[in-house]
């Protein structure tokens, strides 16, 4: 892990001209691969487009350009490869919504039998394809410890089809299939799937969570994952202005607040054990994170919480904070 404190300017920006040129972020380099190039059709301020470029660029750098990307159906695929134009600049394949991990397994197997183990395989999809429809294939890929880095770009709903609930949708969130009506408006409590923890239960070599709000951290995790063989899982929170009902310019800020409020803990795990959790640097109540998003607007009336649901969201955040020891100073290490 790159220690941001070592930054000579004491700042958390992607880099600055004083930084160590050799170790600067891929995203800061003039010759970065731009694996997902301009002209793609993502919405303004798309977190997924940003996340994908950061991840694939870093993976390309780590693998010295020898990368094959397998993409599940979803926003990322649709906005990047509408005939006759593709925004990808790397070897890339899209097959189906639910099979990206399996296709990646196949690609990795082909590379292995062909003696081209230097070619690394990265599979990616949104939360729908990862936590729901492709979950069986993902679990199989994990369980066999296939040599694939799987990256989930989590925007917490089926955005491609018009914002329907997925098993990654947080409680109370409004989606097209969990409207803010009835006795428990929005998505209900006590549901959802924590795929990073499930991935850990497969005892795979590496599991990590990250967001687009910290490019260096995200890149470092990709590099770490790429330094290993076997099944690796990276879960990246990518705010979606459309689905979250937030201004495009808030994409990164919201990802940051998700972390700082404790609802989205950043951690790494190796072989099923948490090895590191990123401390919250500027703790905020969940309200600060939820309020700017229209999908949570029904939690507030005239700026005040409508009922105890906000408190219950805070409880979830607090549970994360305590589980991963996100406050305090000592590093959480095994």
């Amino acid at each position, binding site marked *: 892990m790159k220690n941001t404190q070592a930054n000579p300017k004491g700042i*958390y*920006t992607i880099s600055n001209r004083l930084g160590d040129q050799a170790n600067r972020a891929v995203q*800061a380099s003039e010759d970065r691969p731009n694996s997902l190039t*301009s002209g793609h059709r993502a919405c303004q301020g*798309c977190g997924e*487009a940003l996340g994908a470029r950061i991840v694939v660029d870093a993976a390309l750098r780590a693998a010295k350009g020898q990368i094959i990307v397998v993409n599940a159906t979803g926003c990322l695929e649709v906005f990047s490869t509408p*005939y006759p*134009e*593709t925004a990808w600049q790397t070897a890339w394949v899209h097959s189906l919504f639910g099979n990206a991990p399996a296709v990646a397994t196949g690609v990795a197997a082909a590379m292995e039998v062909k003696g081209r183990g230097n070619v690394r395989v990265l599979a990616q999809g949104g939360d729908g394809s990862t936590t729901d429809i492709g979950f069986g294939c993902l679990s199989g890929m994990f369980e066999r410890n296939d040599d694939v880095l799987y990256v989930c770009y989590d925007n917490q709903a089926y955005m491609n089809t018009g914002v329907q609930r997925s098993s990654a949708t947080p409680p109370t969130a409004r989606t097209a299939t969990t409207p803010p009506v009835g006795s428990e408006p929005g998505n209900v409590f006590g549901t959802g799937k924590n795929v990073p923890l499930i991935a850990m239960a497969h005892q795979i070599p590496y599991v990590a969570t990250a967001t687009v709000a910290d490019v260096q951290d995200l890149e470092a995790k990709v590099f770490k994952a790429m330094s290993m063989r076997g099944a690796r899982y990276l879960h990246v929170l990518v705010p979606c202005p459309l689905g979250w009902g937030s201004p495009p310019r808030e994409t990164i*800020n919201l990802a940051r607040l998700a972390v700082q409020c404790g609802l989205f803990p950043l951690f790494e795990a190796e072989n099923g054990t948490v090895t590191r959790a990123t401390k919250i640097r500027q703790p905020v109540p969940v309200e600060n994170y939820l309020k700017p998003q229209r999908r949570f607007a029904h939690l507030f009336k005239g700026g005040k919480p409508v009922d105890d649901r906000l408190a219950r969201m805070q409880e979830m955040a607090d549970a994360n904070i305590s589980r991963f020891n996100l406050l305090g100073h000592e590093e959480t290490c095994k």
Partner: protein
Amino acid sequence: MKPFATVLEVGTSLNNHTGSWRTERPSYAHRLPPCNNACPAGENIQEWLSLAEQEKYEEAWREIVKNNPFPAIMGRVCYHPCENACNRVTIESPVGINSVERFLGDKAIRDKWAFDRPAAKSGKKVLVIGAGPAGLSAAYHLARLGHKVTVKESLKKAGGMLRYGIPQYRLPRKILDAEIKRIVDYGVELEVNKKVTNLAEVVESKAFDAVFLSVGAHIAKLTEFPTSPRSRVLDAVAVLRDMENREKPKLGKRVVVYGGGNTAMDVARTAKRLGAKEVTIVYRRTREKMPAHSFEIDEALQEGIKIKFLVTIKKYQNKKLTLGKMALDAKGYPQPTGKNETMETDCIVLALGQDSDLALLEKFPGLEIADGALKVDSRMMTSHAGVFAGGDMIPFERTATTGVGHGKKAARSIDAWLRKVEQPATEKHPLATAERLNKWYYAEVSENKRKLIDIAHRTKTFDEVQLGLSEAEALNESRRCLSCGNCFECDNCYGVCPDNAIRKLGAGKGFKIDYDYCKGCGLCAAECPCGCIEMTPEDI
């Protein structure tokens, strides 16, 4: 043969210009950093800090001396309004700009850096009257602009209040001498012990094409109270000036200083160093109202100087000082209580402010003078064409840095006037306010403070109290600069653009926005730590 439609050539999306989706356009702006805005000498502080943080110290120094020829002096005596304005205070504490400036100034002396070559000779001659900060600054800037400058100084040595008002423990004379010498070496003719008594003569002689007046304010303001013949009442200006003589003033064991300004502190601390056992400052208001800088008061207190607040001098007879006690009224103003207290003292030093000696103007008609100060226009020119003025003698804040700023401004005006050109109006960017910062990106980093020599040492000698920063400390301190309102190439905009619409032009060259692909999401602006990206609506 690639299958039709299902297999696509890489990177072909570049044919699709998504910039047409944009309703707002980002652009890089330059905003005026608050430090620069606050600097009386008009230093481009952010720029030289940015050079310093790259360890380009000489370039940083050269950037300072474009505006101020005295980094080593200012790095000691300036009351740094820049730091008071610094946005970093909203994170933890301001950047120690002054200490970095001193580091650069000292390094310049040590490494014998000389000023840049002056501009081509103009053939014009300018007289500067008074070799204080304003006069020397004007002389330097005029020389830099190619003019022949003569400085006439009434006192023995150049420096004005820097020498005759600021104690050595705050400004060692070798530093002062070195920076003055550098100006002299630059070709400025300095004539000391040359008091100009009649400006009219000088102007009429036509020996000079322009004159800059900067005689300062060396006449102490006094106050009246009953004294007896044996009671010594001195003024601070004289005491401090006499400190430059071989024979130091004799103040006695017990000294009372009357006043609450920086001069009061200076003289009190000087008295202590001269051997006074008991030095007391008496001041009619409270500490909060004291005009002296807080750190000066602190340092004085550390050195054992006592301060009596809310007292005025009633009378001083036979070493017995009677003080009238004051109390704050409802509005917070001190009012006499009628109660007194007494104390013994060997002398009283009055530090109640200064006036300028404007005798040389008496025979020069048409100059506008109000409240003992000479009026100038926005170009620093008096109502007489070709006669300019600055420093403590014009109505303005009386600080050395202000004087330096006056000198610079006047020099540029004189230059324009001599060349008969309009002085270009300097474009002032909008202020880089703290609200525009994205503070998330700045870690809390505590200030690298200058150390003080120990108290025992301080109270016995005139050695410099404040030590300089080490190179490492100066470097780290310069790196605390937030670069408010101006790009410092942190790569945030480049890194966070989901559309790769920002082109990186290379180190030092900044960035360019490719509007063919920029969708106007505003992430670059939101995530710019220093607030240098503006979003403006597209013309429709």
